[in-house]
């Protein structure tokens, strides 16, 4: 029997060209269709707020994190990093004052990024500051820093200050109106990169859990509940409800493993985004990692359509809706 797509059939070359053309068209549609930059602006504001807070906390103990007599001497950083590629401007800081200046510059950039003033420069400096801090203090970084890095690269690439920003207000004022940013390919590429990166994170996080017996047994959540180093909310009463622990563990595992596939279809997207909010807020509240949870939720915001933000804006404030309406 000769199948329609049989490579041995005379029509195979034209079929192959059609198949490749479909791939190319799908690739172009996925990456190069102009998109509304509003979701990117929302991600920018959320990221800027979290980064601002993170910078403030770095500054609380700046000598310990970045100083020559801190947790990790500059000469020992190579033990935990891939040098020389993992650069840091703190390697060049020769005094405590310089450490504070560099940390302060990152904080200022994070504030500017949040409000959207000189946004491209702010995003660049914020990224350099984030990476410098993480690479100088590898003993002190965790998932929050990984996630902020994931968030900042798309904000650098795309027009993240195109709306909901001081930049926009200034540009609009100059032209006689606030207006709204036009859809752009750069906005789409930035949002797509964030979406795909987030799926990669969930895929490997879920795949790594599938190596662990406690995740299959449905008891892994207990390991987090019983760990008093993480605990900010005492959930040890769950010891009396093992089936609840099983359900929460297996539900978390299924959500994380399935996320890269099921966040894309419209039918399941809302469910998976809602579960993301629930899981990350739960980790934040119960395990004291609220910043990490909020950063992951911020990344999930890239999957929320611009129309949804507009509906939310209209429901919150008629003035917001009016200022963001398409001319």
């Amino acid at each position, binding site marked *: 029997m000769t199948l329609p797509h049989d490579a041995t059939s005379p029509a195979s070359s034209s079929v192959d060209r059609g198949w490749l053309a479909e791939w190319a068209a799908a690739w172009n549609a996925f990456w190069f*269709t102009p998109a509304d930059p509003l979701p990117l602006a929302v991600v920018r504001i959320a990221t800027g707020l979290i980064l601002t807070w993170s910078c403030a906390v770095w500054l609380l103990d700046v000598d310990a994190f970045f100083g020559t007599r801190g947790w990790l001497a500059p000469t020992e950083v190579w033990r935990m990093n891939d040098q020389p590629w993992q650069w840091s401007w703190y390697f060049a800081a020769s005094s405590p004052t310089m450490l504070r200046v560099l940390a302060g510059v990152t904080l200022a950039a994070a504030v500017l990024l949040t409000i959207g003033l000189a946004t491209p420069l702010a995003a660049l400096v914020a990224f350099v500051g984030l990476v410098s801090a993480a690479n100088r203090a590898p003993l002190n970084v965790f998932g929050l820093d990984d996630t902020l890095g994931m968030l900042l690269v798309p904000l650098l690439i795309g027009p993240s200050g195109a709306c909901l920003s001081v930049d926009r207000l200034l540009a609009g004022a100059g032209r006689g109106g606030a207006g709204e940013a036009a859809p752009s390919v750069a906005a789409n590429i930035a949002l*797509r990169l964030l979406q795909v990166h987030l799926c990669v994170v969930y895929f490997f996080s879920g795949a790594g859990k599938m190596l662990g017996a406690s995740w299959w047994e449905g008891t892994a959540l207990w390991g987090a509940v019983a760990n008093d*180093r993480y605990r900010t909310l005492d959930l040890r009463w769950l010891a009396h409800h093992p089936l609840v622990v099983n359900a929460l563990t297996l539900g978390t595992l299924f959500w994380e493993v399935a996320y890269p596939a099921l966040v894309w279809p419209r039918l399941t997207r809302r469910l998976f985004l809602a579960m993301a909010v629930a899981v990350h807020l739960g980790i934040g509240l119960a395990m004291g990692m609220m*910043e990490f949870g909020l950063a992951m939720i911020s990344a999930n915001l890239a999957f929320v359509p611009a129309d949804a933000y507009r509906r939310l804006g209209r429901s919150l404030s008629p003035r917001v809706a009016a200022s963001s309406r398409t001319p």
Partner: protein
Amino acid sequence: MDGGADPRGGPMSSSTPMPTVMHTLRTSTHAWSAPARAVATLLILVYLAAVLAPPFAGPPPASELASVVLQPLRPLVGSLFLGHGYRFFAPNPGPGHSILWTMTMPDGTTRSGRIPDETHDWPRLLYHRRFMVSEKISVLVPPGDAPADVRDRAKRDWLPLVKGVATNLLRAEGGQRVTLDLVEHYLPDPAEVIAAATAADLVTPLGTFGPAGGTSP
């Protein structure tokens, strides 16, 4: 799957009917020229390779192929801070760790404390950044009943990091000498919690250190 971006609704299209002009935008020829899209495609593929290679390459278990693929990408991975494994709470959530310190002050008195310190390390993000110190060092320190050669080999990795911890504590507290112990906090199972049973934490001595980093474990 929603393959195309919605110019009004962001990359994920919504169920709201699109205005005609936006429909035209969506179905019109792409805004970027073919050469521009080709260059962008190349950059996107390189970036995605730099995102994907590190979690394939580690932490263990990992293939040799992943390491080979990662090698040429190391400058990009390192520069863009992409070298992560993303194995959050995997493969199994384990016990928590802290470092107990006892310090001799210049006047001969002693002080003690814990890293992290849930009562003093505030805000919580500061606690968590300090918590990472004990967690990351704990990964390198084998249990006290491990074979001597295993402990000796591991010490070459963790000792320089622990010296840094001691140096930082002596700087911050103004002490003369500090003794450090790694504590693995016992993780009770549900039955033990119901029975209000407790078990001892596992304590591993890390050594005593002076300002110059000298050690006398």
